[in-house]
């Protein structure tokens, strides 16, 4: 019992650092960019709106990383999803719901192939998902090489989904300089993303599958000896990741309303960074989707900070995320060394 407490304490420290970092960054942003409206509640909601897709993807990524694997195909899969949605609805005029279903099914199939290769054939997850990454990006170009957008005329239903507003109580808003009250709002995408977070959190905590993910990441050999079906669990983890990634792709598409080959480049980096910043260990066995949610928020705050400045090049956001990922990886490795020392 005592040992367990020590382990949890170490992980909580990582999560605590993350939460403090987020609050610190946000407060600094509020102070520096106060005149640009950084302090408004809507800015925070905008971070959620723009990153709804990333939240879903990060949840899937966390599940895969819990088993000690990784999935770097997510960015390309999102690009492929967006392109399929855009071409099917924008060019072919297909109805909305079947297309979304199709995209979700494609995600599951994609995950099945990757999961089979990783789980049953025992190939390194990185090699498999890297091939998946290039395959996805390439397929996007095979489907269409132009930038395709979805407009209101082409698909009114999808358009209405994308532009639906859910207003929050007015007292959270502010009065702009013309004397008009700006009521804060979120989009339905945010709700879907939050539902995904809660569902995955529940799954990881209270279902057999969720606990097996932790067990396999902790020690694969032990998990197998205790009678867990390691191969099938791994397969399902990749299916779950690709499925959540496809949901994320639909949410992402609702945000951009377009498909292009270059879309969502570096998304895998953002998702991995969010998970790692949120306290998921790269070696597996330790992690929490709520942490990943905070990781996504940190990621979004960095981008918002860079954009608020206006003068900085957008590549600074990439560099900052990479630096943060590097910092947290080093932190993790130090924690791991300390733990080893304690033993």
């Amino acid at each position, binding site marked *: 019992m005592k040992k367990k407490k020590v382990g949890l304490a170490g992980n909580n420290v990582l999560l605590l650092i993350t939460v403090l970092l987020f609050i610190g960054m946000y407060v600094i942003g509020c102070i520096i960019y106060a005149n640009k409206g950084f302090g408004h509640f809507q800015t925070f909601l905008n971070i959620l709106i723009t990153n709804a897709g990333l939240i879903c993807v990060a949840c899937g990524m966390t599940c895969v990383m819990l088993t000690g694997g990784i999935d770097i195909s997510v960015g390309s899969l999102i690009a492929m999803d967006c392109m399929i949605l855009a071409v099917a609805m924008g060019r072919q005029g297909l109805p909305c719901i079947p297309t979304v279903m199709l995209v979700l099914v494609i995600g599951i199939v994609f995950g099945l192939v990757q999961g089979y*290769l990783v789980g049953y054939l025992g190939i390194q997850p990185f090699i498999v998902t*890297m091939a998946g990454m290039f395959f996805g*990006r390439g397929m996007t170009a095979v489907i269409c090489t132009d930038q395709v957008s979805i407009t209101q005329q082409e698909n009114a239903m999808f358009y209405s989904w994308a532009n639906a507003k859910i207003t929050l109580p007015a007292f959270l808003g502010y009065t702009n300089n013309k004397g008009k009250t700006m009521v804060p709002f979120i989009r339905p995408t945010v709700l879907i993303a939050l539902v995904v977070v809660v569902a995955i959190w529940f799954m990881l905590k209270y279902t057999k599958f969720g606990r097996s993910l932790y067990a396999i990441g902790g020690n694969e050999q032990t998990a197998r000896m205790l009678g867990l079906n390691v191969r099938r669990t791994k397969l399902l983890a990749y299916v779950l990741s690709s499925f959540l990634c496809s949901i994320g792709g639909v949410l992402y598409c609702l945000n951009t309303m377009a498909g292009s080959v270059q879309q969502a480049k570096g998304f895998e980096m953002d998702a991995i960074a969010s998970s790692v910043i949120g306290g998921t260990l790269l070696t597996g066995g330790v992690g929490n989707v709520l942490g990943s949610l905070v990781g996504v928020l940190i990621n979004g705050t960095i981008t918002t900070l860079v954009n608020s400045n206006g003068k900085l090049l957008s590549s600074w956001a990439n560099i900052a995320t990479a630096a943060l990922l590097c910092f947290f990886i080093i932190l993790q490795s130090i924690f791991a060394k300390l733990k080893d020392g304690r033993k």
Partner: protein
Amino acid sequence: MKNIQKITRMKLFFPLFCLLLVLLINVVKDPGFFQISVKNGVLYGRLIDVLNRGSEVAILAVGQTLVVAVSAGTDISVGSVMSLSACFTTMLLAGYGVNTTTTIVMPMALGLLAGILMGGLCGAFNGALVSKLRIQPMVATLILFTAARAIGLLLCNNQITYIRYEPYKYLGNFIPGCPIPTPIFVTIVVIVIIMLVLKKSALGTFIQSVGINSRAARLLGINSDFLCFLCYVICGLCAGVAGMIASSRIYCADSNNIGLNYEMDAILAVALGGNSLAGGRFNMAGSIIGAYTIQAITTTLLAMGVSTDQAPVVKAIIVILIVVVQSPVFKSWVETKKNRRRAEIKEAV
């Protein structure tokens, strides 16, 4: 029958077989594939094109082979590092923020050297993360995979820097009076240096022993951490050289496009060369043949009208096929099939 088995068991059989297969497909499709002609005093032809364009992949494959052998992981940042070192060199030569220039502000050799060293620095960063902090190679290199291009954009002030200075084009194109493209010479030089180091010193053997069992190697007195670090630095330097060639070809540094998808090609070259991606024993010659096979595939695809954006699909499928064939599960499945057939034959007798 025994002779055939002897040939198929040779180390270089698989890579050579793949190369010949690709060449054969090309010859059937286009009989003029092997034609080499001289135009304007330089050599022209598909074969020359493959050798020329394959230089970057071959150089990257040399570095990648060492990394795979020593750490059982791959360096996925090589493409981005190529672009970063190219951006660094053009920034030094043209000056910060200059869009296009016909004169250079510092000696060209110095600029090129700085670019290559920049690659080495990136390699050192990766190496430190992998060897000292024991982070999985692919996660460690993922950091530079995204960040290096972004840093390159910063160095170039978010624009494409053109250097319209004649000698700068020599490295990636032709030296006046010489009919053979310069990148071929550069590749030969890199390969010869690495081969000499590996063969004349015990480095090659040390790298293999670290890759097979790094703890055992350390107990034998090999500094396995340092060797791992060194391999990443060499890989970074190779990426730097490849970046110089790629930048010189188009006499500019386009941060978003230089070295795009090259990490895939490099890893594919290593796998095609008959090397196990699980580390340990390596076969440099196989990797180099693998690299030219990849280039031949790329050239074939481009000649067939497949766009550069679409080509990765085919390569991804090839990678998966190779790793599936290499996987222990598949191998044991083949073994059991063979054994069963043997047993059946015995029973029949």
